[in-house]
């Protein structure tokens, strides 16, 4: 059981980390609370399903095309819907909720409400620490690690990353230093949704796909982001693994834990907030006036 917890927590934590880091990026740079973030993750899963079984594309092409299509869609949504109401914070909030609902209902119309599944890309098991881990889960781990590494490299070792970090730190000053903040915000939306889409594509063979699959990771992701500190990428990463392991421990070690896993994870978030209201790695509140 101990090994089960170890592996499940690692895999789930990795997927959560991809989602939470994308959400944190977009919140940090553009101050958008993107409720539709996990809806893009769901869209990527559905896109993969559609491209594989309706269009009959080979696996690799379908994966790449799914991610690219979802990123393009997100940029169009950002231009058409979010940017015109950027000054009104509450309007942005409900615009993202409405977008998520639109995606959910469109998928319901297009694919129906039934649970769909994608067969694993590679069958079989590997033995890690005496636990049988399917190759698909190992692929998830590898892809998650690669995506996180690439994001780290982009943010810390390139000029674009510097611009993104500068815009997240202080929009006005970044603007004054000649950074095109609007374009940086747009690129960040693309990167953040790409991370979500990658997560959606890799988990599609492991999880079931249905039009409501965006809700439960949304709540977990928000809990992680708040737990780690809003806008803090390090916090999101560590928070993701904390929540991933807490869920795994609850499921495997507590009776009727499957029902309680969400409740326990969210209670941990509440407790952390009670002790440190700005989250584990958040900066202390500045009075915004």
């Amino acid at each position, binding site marked *: 059981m101990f090994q089960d917890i170890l592996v499940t927590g690692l895999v789930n934590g990795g997927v959560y980390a991809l989602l939470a880091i994308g959400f944190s990026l977009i919140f940090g740079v553009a101050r958008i609370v993107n409720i539709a973030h996990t809806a893009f993750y769901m869209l990527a899963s559905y896109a993969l399903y559609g491209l594989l079984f309706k269009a009959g594309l080979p696996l690799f092409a379908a994966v790449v095309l799914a991610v690219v299509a979802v990123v393009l869609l997100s940029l169009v949504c950002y231009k058409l819907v979010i940017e015109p109401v950027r000054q009104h914070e509450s*309007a942005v909030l409900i615009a993202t*909720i409405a977008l998520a609902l639109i995606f959910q209902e469109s998928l319901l119309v297009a694919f129906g409400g039934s649970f769909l599944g994608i067969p694993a890309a590679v069958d079989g098991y590997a033995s890690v620490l005496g636990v049988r881990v399917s190759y698909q889960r190992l692929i998830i781990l590898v892809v998650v690690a690669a995506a996180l590494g690439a994001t780290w490299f982009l943010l810390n070792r390139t000029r674009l990353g510097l611009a993104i970090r500068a815009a997240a730190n202080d929009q006005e000053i970044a603007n004054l230093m000649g950074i095109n903040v609007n374009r940086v915000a747009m690129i960040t939306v693309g990167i953040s949704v790409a991370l979500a889409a990658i997560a959606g594509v890799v988990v599609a063979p492991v999880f079931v796909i249905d039009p409501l699959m965006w809700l439960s990771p949304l709540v977990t992701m928000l809990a992680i982001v708040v737990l780690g500190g809003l806008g803090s990428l390090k916090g999101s990463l560590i928070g993701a693994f904390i929540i991933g392991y807490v869920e795994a421990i609850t499921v495997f070690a507590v009776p009727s834990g499957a029902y309680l896993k*969400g*409740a326990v994870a969210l209670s941990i978030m509440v407790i952390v907030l009670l002790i440190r209201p700005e989250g584990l790695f958040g900066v202390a509140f500045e009075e915004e006036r």
Partner: protein
Amino acid sequence: MRALAPLWLWAQLRHEVFVLPSRSLILAACVALLALPLAYSDAYVLRIFTMTAIFAIYAASWDLLAGYTGQVNFGHALFFGVGAYTSALLSLRLGISPWLSVPAGSIAAMASGVLVGIPCLRLRGSYLSLATLAFPLILTGVLFAFPDFSGGELGVSGLKRLVATPVANYYVAVIAMLAACFAMWKIGDSNTGLIFHAIREDEVAARASGINTPRYKLLAFALSAMFAGIAGALFAHFMRGAGPSSLEVALSFQAVIWGIFGGIATIIGPVIAVFVLYPLTELLGGIDIFKDIRLLLFAVIVLLVLLFMPRGLTPWVRDRIELVCPRCKNRNVVTRHACRLCGASLE
């Protein structure tokens, strides 16, 4: 003295209500709501409007907390669900009359509001919104873990209705809605409401002015939760059951959508939003071609309206039919040339 009462009422109406088109419209809408069953007593229509009235209380209660006090709550369904479950369980397990279990439900919701409000005192802005999202889900998890008591995923059913006929149910909901919304509007208009506004605009300045902000924030949580609890309890008795759907994320988001769509910090705005959006989606669901895509249409309509009216429907309409006097800040019909109270030019 008694003979003067109608005269006084008429003077009030003439000088306070009929001078402004927005107030006249609201009065007309209230009268129309109360007269609806006399003209049109189709059970299906009455059912839709009963639900609309119940959700209007719920949406307005969100506005009291999020719009006035600025504590943007993403987990408002918690209060609705606590109200629904408490009154349902009390009346099922203990056989309490619905007329007592509804107030009991609202008191339980009020207690939950205080309970949630205490940790939220330390949180601000987006942290508060995202953290409050968790509370209804924590309660759902706990309810699922004790299925014998709570009915698990199916919830509890078989409740008595408050009253028997559809018309009577309609009147219970509409009168409760009018009373609750009037009360919330009065709270928003009072000294307390002013303090709520101050906390939303600048909490530090409010505290520096000698206002005990934690106490007022808790008060906002308690009041808002109480009204949401009334809505939940009424809903449980009207639907004759309470289930986990009353704690769903979707219901919490629904309050946010109604509130922002109608215009925050107005009380009447969310109520109007519910009265526009809820019957609209139900009607669309009644037409065959729209049956499957009614939620899609709902979201598209909300999105489109928001692109043109980012501050919400009600403030947009009110700005079109009324002007604010530049000198005394009172509102006037758009057709007037001079302010009705101070005589300043409105040009």
